[in-house]
């Protein structure tokens, strides 16, 4: 009886440990998942709910043997399916698929892209870079950024659009040069 109790306790501890491990693995993918869902066009206020739902599915499935990459792909698959289920029209479901293609295509040479982007950012005038940092790294709204740089929110919008266009061209140029 004591042996059975000990075995039961052991298996429960084992289960808890496995669950903790899975929890850590899920957490390590949370940022990626959030970005993926954003690229797929999920509403900002639905992001947290969707991620939670994906995690619930992952906890219910046996996914422990997956390596990091495969686990990430599995989570993305779940996330996409959930988003597709929420989309009623064929058109909006197609948007999700197209966005997934963009994700797949862009992440193929992702590190290279980020390196190129960082080089392009380094070449920007400091003020332009500061403006981008305020928006993307610090998450300031256009209004707050405008206040910081003495511009109106609309001006910030135009400026950001132009900066992004320039950076995108710069990255593509660099990637073409490297390939």
């Amino acid at each position: 009886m004591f042996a059975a109790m000990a075995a039961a306790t052991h298996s429960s501890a084992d289960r808890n440990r496995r669950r903790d491990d899975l929890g850590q693995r899920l957490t390590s993918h949370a940022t990626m998942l959030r970005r993926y869902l954003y690229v797929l066009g999920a509403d900002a206020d639905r992001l947290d709910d969707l991620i939670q739902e994906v995690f619930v599915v992952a906890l219910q499935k046996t996914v422990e043997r997956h390596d990091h990459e495969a686990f990430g792909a599995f989570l993305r698959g779940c996330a996409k399916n959930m988003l597709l289920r929420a989309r009623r029209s064929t058109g909006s479901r197609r948007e999700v698929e197209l966005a997934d293609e963009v994700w797949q295509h862009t992440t193929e040479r992702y590190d290279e892209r980020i390196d190129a982007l960082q080089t392009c950012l380094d070449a920007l005038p400091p003020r332009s870079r500061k403006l981008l940092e305020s928006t993307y790294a610090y998450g300031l709204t256009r209004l707050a950024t405008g206040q910081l740089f003495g511009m109106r929110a609309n001006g910030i919008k135009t400026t950001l659009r132009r900066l992004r266009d320039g950076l995108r061209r710069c990255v593509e140029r660099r990637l073409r040069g490297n390939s």
Partner: protein
Amino acid sequence: MSQSTDEVARASAQERMFDVQLLDALTSIAAADPLPKQATTYRRSPPARLLAAAIGLLGLAVTVLIAWQPSRPLSQAQNGSLAQNPTPSSAAMPAQRWIIKPQDLATTPVNSENLAVYTNAIDDYKPLAGFAQLRRLMILGDGIPEPTANSLVPLGKLAKLEELELPLQDEMLPDHLRALAKAKQVHSLRLHCKRVMTQADVQTLKAMPALRTLTVFGGELDAATVRSLSELPHLDELNLQSVAACTEQVLTQLRMLHRLRRLGLSSMGEQLLVTQLGETPTPGAGLTPAVAMALRDLPLLQELKLVSCKVTTAALAALPSGLRRICIVRCPDTYPADVLALRHCRNLTEVSFDNHDVTRWLHAMPQDFLREPAQLGDAQAELIRNLALTHFDYASTMPNAVRLAIASKPSLTHVKLLWFERDDLDALANVKNLKHLTLDEGRAVELQNLQVLTRCESLETLTVRHHDWQPAELQRMLPGVTVRTFQH
């Protein structure tokens, strides 16, 4: 779904994907360098340091004197350079720290003197009262939720606060500003207006005992409110930026502000090129002849700053001739004739110009849009030649004519260059009495290009911004010169 709809969907996904990439690329920068770097200052030899200390003390005395005499008549101010913004404290402002997220509050040292706080990080202003050493506080963002009459009380408790930037929220009543009267050292207030600024607001600002500089950014002003600004007892500097409804009738009321010494009009007036280039149109009238005539009624006015502001030949020709400093930058509709219209301002000792090759401060101006670029340089040069300039600022590459003109100015002692090139440095080497030089964001300029400055025998200080040149190397290159470098 049609092909074009597919393209739109793909393009918007690519936009979002680029957001993600920017976030990745910039987060590493921000994480490594969350705050602007501290200025690095290299000092000269001990005797020179003593001399500098003596000059510093003299400067402090002058600053105190200016602060003590807020309404010095122009005749008394005519010896020496234009008064800078007087500050109660003479110590240099340390680098700014940012509070962007709620958790930043806990990690920000309580003895911080210079903070930028994003209102998303705070529910109200109470936590800011804990930063008792604050001298400069920028509050960014939409403001706090549901402001009350007591919301600003914590800011009034900041006994050392000198400069304050604050969102004037839609829900904030004039009475709410009353708490600022307790901030007795605040000499500079910048209001980021989310609503119309009224006479009642100005009435409450009257209680701020040290207020000398007021900047109104955004919002709206009417004629009566502008007129009422004359009731602010110590106001000597006013900056209006992107303020809607600033018609000619409103701006001509500036003539009532008899104590005004410095005026700035930014992002004002419809500028043809700005609109053609797709930039956001700027509100208001800008500098019209009637507004310029109104400024003639201001006996103390010394300085006029026009940034991205509509100007015309007739308006510039109508400006008061006693002006000592004028700044006309990012006004792309300015023609050479406009610059020459300033010839009657014979007392100008400080000028700031640019060559219009940058639309605002970020984008290159398409060459075919430039208004007579060669003639613009000639006009600026002609004006410079006829003035006893002491201070000269230039943004973008100087035209050759301007380079030659400044080289012939023995009176010129202070130069600031923004977005300069190598050839501009060569031109500086010929400025005989150049003492103080500021270089900001050079274009394709290497450290060794500064070698040419060794020919400036009178050079005393060199301030370098936005370059990663090692101060020690600069110091080695220019022995005897006080070198300051700022990364921000």
